[in-house]
C-alpha cells in the first residue's frame, strides 16, 4: 500500500432512525500522496466520510477502496493499524509516556524493541519535540506538544494513509498556524495520502492539494485544487461558503516569489537630490528608498532632501516590515497597509529584491 489512493464508490451512510442520509451516493477519488481537505458546515458528513475509511463507521452501501483493495475484505484492526489516525482531542493515553504513546502501533504490530526505539527517535525529531519530553506523561505537555505527539503516534508505523479529523481545531491560533506549517513541510518529505477534515475554509485552502466542499448530506459541491475553488467557485453554495474574503484568500495561495516585483522609487546612495526628485516624480510618490551595493539603507521624505548632500549622507528611516519570496501575497498586503509608504519591501536574504504595490497585487487577482 505504498501508493495508496482512496476511492469512494457510490458510498451512502444512513444512520438508524435518521430520515435523511448523512452521506448520499458519494463518488470521490483521493489521489495517493496528496492532501485532500474535506470542508463544509456541520452536518455535511465530513467526519462520517473520514471514519468510513478506517471502518470506525461502516457504510450503508457502496464500496471504499484503499490502495486498490476493498476495505470490507480486510480485518478492521489490521486495516486501522495501516492507517494513521489523528483526532481533535488528540486522545493520547494518559497513563503512557510520550515514548509509549508513539510506540502504540509498532507494539500492536509486534515490532522488536530496537526497531521501535529507532523509529521513536526519528519521529521525535521529525515532529519537532524535545528528546527530554520522551519520558513525560501527556498531562505534562502543552496542547501543541500533545498534538505533535499525536501526529508522531499516527506516523509511527509509517502508514501510507493518514486520516486527520480537525486535528488543530483545539489549539490556540498561533500554535495552529505553526502546526499547519509543520504539517506542510512534513508532507513535502513524506508524501502521504492525507484526508484532512476541517470546518475552516482557510485551513482547507492552506493544506489541501484538493479541496472538497461538502453540503449537508455529504453532497460534493466542488472538488478541485484550492486555486480553482477560489478562482472559479462552481456554484452559489461554494461562493457563499468561501465568504466575502475570497479575494484575500486567493492571495494567501500565491507566493511573493511567483509575481514580478517592481524596482520602486529607489536611488543609489551616491545620487544627489535632483536625481531623487526625478525618481519621485516618475513614481508619483513623496519619498524615495536609498540603495547601497544592493542593500536597502532605508527611505527619506522628499522634504528631507538637502541641496548638495548625497542621499547616502542623509539619515534614512528603516523599512519596518520585511517580506521574502516565501511569504504569501496576503502577508505582503498586510505589510503594505501597515507601512507609511504603501509598499511591501521584498528582501532576498539581506539584499533588496524589489517592491510590491497594491496595484501589482490586484493584477494577480483580476485576470
Amino acid at each position, binding site marked *: 500500500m505504498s501508493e495508496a489512493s482512496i476511492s469512494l464508490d457510490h458510498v451512502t451512510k444512513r444512520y438508524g432512525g435518521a430520515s435523511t442520509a448523512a452521506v448520499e451516493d458519494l463518488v470521490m477519488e483521493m489521489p495517493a500522496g496528496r492532501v485532500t481537505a474535506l470542508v463544509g458546515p456541520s452536518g455535511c458528513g465530513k467526519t462520517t466520510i473520514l471514519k468510513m475509511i478506517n471502518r470506525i463507521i461502516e457504510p450503508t452501501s457502496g464500496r471504499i477502496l484503499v490502495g486498490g483493495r476493498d476495505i470490507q475484505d480486510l480485518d478492521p484492526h489490521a486495516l486501522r493499524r495501516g492507517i494513521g489516525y489523528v483526532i481533535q482531542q*488528540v486522545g493520547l493515553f494518559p497513563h503512557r509516556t510520550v515514548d509509549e504513546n508513539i510506540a502504540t502501533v509498532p507494539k*500492536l504490530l509486534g515490532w522488536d524493541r530496537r526497531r521501535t526505539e529507532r523509529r521513536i527517535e526519528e519521529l521525535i525529531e521529525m515532529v519537532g519535540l524535545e528528546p527530554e519530553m520522551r519520558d513525560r506523561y501527556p498531562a*505534562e505537555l502543552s496542547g501543541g506538544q500533545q498534538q505533535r505527539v*499525536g501526529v508522531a503516534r499516527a506516523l509511527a508505523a509509517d502508514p501510507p494513509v493518514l486520516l486527520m479529523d480537525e486535528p488543530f481545531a483545539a489549539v490556540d491560533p498561533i500554535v495552529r498556524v505553526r502546526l499547519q506549517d509543520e504539517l506542510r513541510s512534513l508532507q513535502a518529505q513524506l508524501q502521504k495520502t492525507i484526508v484532512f477534515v476541517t470546518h475552516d475554509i482557510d485551513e482547507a485552502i492552506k493544506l489541501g492539494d484538493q479541496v472538497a466542499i461538502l453540503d449537508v448530506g455529504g453532497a460534493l459541491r466542488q472538488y478541485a485544487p484550492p486555486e480553482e475553488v477560489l478562482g472559479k467557485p462552481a456554484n452559489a453554495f461554494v461562493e457563499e461558503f468561501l465568504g466575502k474574503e475570497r479575494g484575500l484568500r486567493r492571495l494567501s495561495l500565491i507566493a511573493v516569489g511567483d509575481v514580478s516585483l517592481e524596482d520602486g522609487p529607489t536611488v543609489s546612495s551616491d545620487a544627489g537630490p535632483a536625481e531623487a526628485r526625478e525618481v519621485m516624480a516618475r513614481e508619483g510618490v513623496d519619498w524615495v528608498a536609498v540603495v547601497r551595493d544592493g542593500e536597502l539603507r532605508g527611505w527619506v521624505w522628499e522634504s528631507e532632501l538637502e541641496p548638495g548632500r548625497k542621499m547616502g549622507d542623509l539619515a534614512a528611516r528603516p523599512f519596518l516590515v520585511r517580506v521574502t519570496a516565501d511569504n504569501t501575497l496576503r502577508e505582503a498586503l498586510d505589510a503594505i497597509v501597515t507601512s507609511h509608504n504603501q509598499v511591501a519591501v521584498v528582501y532576498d536574504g539581506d539584499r533588496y529584491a524589489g517592491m510590491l504595490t497594491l496595484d501589482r497585487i490586484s493584477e494577480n487577482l483580476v485576470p
Partner: protein
Amino acid sequence: MPQRAFLATEPLIRWGWIWDHLEEIRTQTVEHFILTGIAVGIGFAIAMGLSIVALRFRRTYGPVTWVTGVLYTIPSLALFAFLVPYTGLSTLTAEIGLVSYTLLILVRNIVAGIDGVSPAVREAAVGMGYGRARLFLEIELPLALPVIVAGLRIATITVVGLVTITSIIGQGGLGLFILDGLRRDFYTPLIVGSVLSVVLAVVIDVALAGLEWLLSPWSRARTAG
C-alpha cells in the same frame, strides 16, 4: 472507698490478660485478615464479571445495581440467620454474606471508572487497531484504576468491620474477643478486638492507597503550565 477499690481491682485494660493471650491475638488477627481477603478477592472477581456484562450490555446495569443494592441493605445478622439453615455455621456462610456486601461498591466503582475514560482516548485506541479485549485490559482498566482502588478501599474497610460479626456464626477473627468480652462483661478482650479491628482496617487501607500510588505514576504527573 469502695468505688476506688473497684477501679483498682477492675482496670479498663488488664495488660496481664493481653500478655497471656498474645499467641491467640496473633492467630485471630491473621484469621480476620484472611476472612477479609477472601471476601474482597472473591467479591472483586464477581464484581469485575458483573461490571464487564453491565458495560457490554448497558441495559443490565440497572438490574445489576438493583440486586447488589438489595444485598447491601440486608442487615448482616439477618442475612447470616437466613443462610445458616442452608450452609450451616460455616466459613461458606460467612463468606457469602461478606462477599455480597462488597458487590455494590465494587461494581459501581468499576463501571464509573471505566465510564470515566475519555471518549477521545477510546476513539484513538480503536482507530489505531485495538480490539475490544486489549482496549479493556491495556487502556480502560489502567485508566480506571484510581476509581477502582477507591472502591476496593471502601469495600475492604466495610468487610473488616463485618468480619467481627461472623464470629457469632462460629468463625474466627477479632470478633471472638469482642463476643467474649460482651459475654463476660470483661472489657479487656472487647477493647483488644475493637482496637485491632480498626488498626487492621487502617493498615489495609493505607496499603491499598500505596498500591494505587505505585501503579498509577501518571496520575501524579503535573500539568503543563
